[in-house]
């Protein structure tokens, strides 16, 4: 139970932290978006107008047909929204008043064999909650991960507190962990923040290895934790998930139902009196934000956090893995000689602005890019916010130039978008780190798999 200290990183302080109050909501509109799963090509199992229960599979993965994605609630499939080339964008569902669950067998995971656990996870669609590295796709079938990592704290700006989510759910959480322990040849790592406020549910977990992490963001990113505990080598697979998904697994075995209730932190400078809300995965943004007063002006609605989340718009839906909603101001305005000004209201990691002198001040930041795209010029600073034992700029250059050998040599199997998000944030050249890295990962996957 050693403590691992992360020294490199950056906590960006933003206005709009959610108050510790959970408000239960009953949204009626839900959607599942295939784009939330990297490299998954959906084949539909339902049609508009069909009735589904919570746990009824909506579509399967073309490449691995046993991987199903299920409906979060019971109700009626209203629409299948398609985009270019008839690509499926959203499967929309109108929820019933009372949620009706598909029933699965209640079984004690400790008494089960690995095959039985896998079968139950696949059948119920819960498998889609397991993600793997490399590539960040849904866990590949027929591969045993060398370890499973669960990050139980999030250090991203205004991130939700996971202690709230597992509150009084000791049995369910433990059942989930017991099931996971059967799935790996190695350990299940339960990674906790090294602070006084850690839920007993986490601390008393059994059948896992508990690790403590201390330090600024990205200490809570699972990529950082994997790199420090048991880095991914070529040919190896690790799985990762978050506590809310462990609860879903626990509920599947303990209560025999597909329960994807989630607690969302509704945050951001444009939300007045931000709080937590409880609803199901994939709820509509409009309904999740309904109890809140939003500031006027043009706003951006993000599912996920401000570094890695998705701009879904007010008419969009929360992402499959997300448990945070953010509303921040759009920044499509001009600023006279802005780059020369002192800009007291803007935040910068760099000392060419003065914000480093007031480390505890919170900021209201908009979506302006604050500059134009350039080639890499400044260096040495990306490393200060990147705690992995990897050369980030060199890896990025390999990704941008699609240099497969170098991407592999420099450690692309160990990273995902969230790991380079801070590099992207501080980048004076405004290079799209996350998008370029994803292109690199996609290329590697095509070449290797």
């Amino acid at each position, binding site marked *: 139970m050693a403590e691992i200290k992360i020294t490199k990183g950056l906590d960006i302080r933003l206005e709009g932290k959610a108050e510790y109050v959970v408000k239960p909501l009953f949204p009626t509109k839900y959607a599942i978006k295939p784009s939330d799963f990297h490299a998954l090509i959906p084949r539909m199992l339902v049609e508009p107008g069909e009735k589904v229960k919570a746990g009824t599979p909506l579509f399967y993965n073309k490449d691995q047909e046993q991987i199903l994605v299920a409906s979060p609630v019971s109700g009626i499939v209203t629409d299948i929204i398609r985009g270019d080339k008839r690509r499926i964008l959203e499967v929309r569902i109108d929820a019933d008043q009372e949620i009706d669950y598909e029933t699965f067998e209640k079984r004690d995971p400790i008494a089960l064999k690995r095959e039985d656990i896998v079968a139950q996870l696949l059948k119920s669609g819960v498998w889609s909650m397991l993600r793997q590295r490399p590539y960040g796709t849904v866990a590949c079938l027929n591969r045993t991960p060398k370890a499973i990592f669960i990050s139980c704290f999030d250090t991203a700006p205004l991130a939700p507190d996971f202690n709230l989510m597992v509150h009084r759910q000791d049995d369910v959480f433990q059942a989930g962990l017991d099931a996971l322990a059967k799935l790996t040849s190695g350990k299940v790592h339960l990674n906790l923040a090294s602070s006084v406020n850690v839920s007993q549910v986490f601390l008393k977990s059994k059948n896992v290895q508990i690790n403590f992490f201390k330090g600024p963001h990205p200490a809570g990113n699972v990529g950082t934790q994997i790199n420090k505990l048991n880095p991914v080598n070529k040919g190896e697979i690790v799985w990762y998930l978050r506590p809310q998904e462990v609860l879903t697994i626990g509920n599947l075995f303990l209560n025999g139902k597909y329960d994807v209730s989630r607690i969302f932190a509704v945050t951001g400078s444009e939300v007045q009196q931000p709080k937590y809300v409880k609803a199901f995965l994939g709820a509509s943004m409009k309904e999740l934000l309904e109890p809140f007063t939003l500031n006027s002006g043009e706003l951006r609605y993000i599912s996920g956090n401000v570094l890695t989340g998705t701009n879904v718009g007010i008419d969009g839906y929360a992402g499959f893995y997300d448990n945070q909603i953010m509303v921040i101001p759009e920044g499509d305005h001009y600023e006279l000689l802005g780059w020369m000004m002192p800009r007291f209201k803007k935040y910068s990691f760099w000392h*060419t602005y003065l914000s480093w002198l007031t480390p505890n001040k919170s900021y209201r930041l908009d979506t302006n890019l*604050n500059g134009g795209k350039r080639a890499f010029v400044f*260096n040495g600073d990306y490393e200060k916010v990147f705690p992995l034992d990897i050369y980030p700029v060199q890896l990025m250059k390999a990704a941008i130039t699609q240099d497969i050998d170098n991407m592999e040599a420099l450690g692309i199997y160990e990273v995902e978008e969230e790991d380079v998000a801070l590099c992207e944030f501080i980048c004076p050249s405004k290079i799209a780190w996350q998008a370029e890295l994803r292109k690199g990962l996609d290329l590697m996957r095509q070449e290797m798999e």
Partner: protein
Amino acid sequence: MKGIRNFVDKIKPNFEKGGKFSFLWSVFDGFETFLFVPNTVTKSGCHIRDAIDMKRGMITVVIALIPALLFGMYNVGYQHFLAIGEIADFWKTFFYGFLAVLPSVIISYVVGLTIEFYFAQKRRHEISEGFLVTGLLIPMILPINVPLWMIALATAFAVFVGKEIFGGTGMNIINPALLARAFLFFAYPLKMSGDDVWVRIGKHHQAIDGFSGATPLGEALNDNIAAIHDTWSISDMVLGFIPGSVGETSFVAILLGAIFLLITGIVSWKIMLSIFAGGYLMGLIFNLVGANDVMLIPAWEHFLIGGFAFGAVFMATDPVTSAQTETGKYIYGALIGILCVLMRVINPAYPEGMMLAILLMNVFAPLIDYLVVQSNIRKRVKRAKDVMVKI
């Protein structure tokens, strides 16, 4: 503000695709983004971004150069009036230097920016701000008597060969400003060294008897060590009242710039520190050998003469052409310091060792980085192998 914005919005369509002046799009964009931070919003990845951009980074370096530039102007006047034996007040002295230096700054910016704009337009890129720094560096590292046409030629050569053929700012291998100096140094050696280039006398004046015009570095390399200390006090050298390239003479002014750069964190302290450490070490070694007078120059005095301090603070730290790995920066810097003193002492044919040391290490920086990164790669390969063995 509204008025300017409306005007810009009104003329903007002319420069966009299909407009009358679309062949000037990059130029227009350059001026527009200079006036206004654009209204671009984030499309992928992080939704919020740091307030820094390339303009802010480059203007920081320009600000850091200003003390050395202003002092350099003053010193041009000071050396002039010293040489002709006239006594002038502060403003007269400064103004003389100001008028002497200003044309070279203008010519360097005009020539360099024209080429930059042309290439940006050809590539339909936004104009990169790198030349804001290069354009100021070029006149600061040249002797005051270099003719303007030579500055224009050298700037054009440096921007074209040193930068644009590699793909522009961020892609170049060697520092363009130093390339400009090296170009002149090898193409027009008589105009770049000797005793006649460092002090502007002017057509209508005559130097007083006994005026030499040599720099301390030149004297040292001619084995006139004694002449250095006879002519200039240590405080002259620290403050910068010595002949030399326009911006390089004042240790104090350069130090001010260095402090600003280190506080803002725009350049690497590791490079600066290791250059001074390397140079000092090499100086000490020569002191110990002591085979001739040049070797006996106190190690720290190397910092005060020639372009050592200026090179260490402003030239070697160029983030594009220096080593880019943190370990590599120590090696890169130390070797620059060592090579500079080595060249000064051992090879009197090339008195300005700093320029050549930095250019040489610019070329080797990618190799240093390669070796540093390789050790990380090897570690990863070894880790993978260890796992295979266990299985």
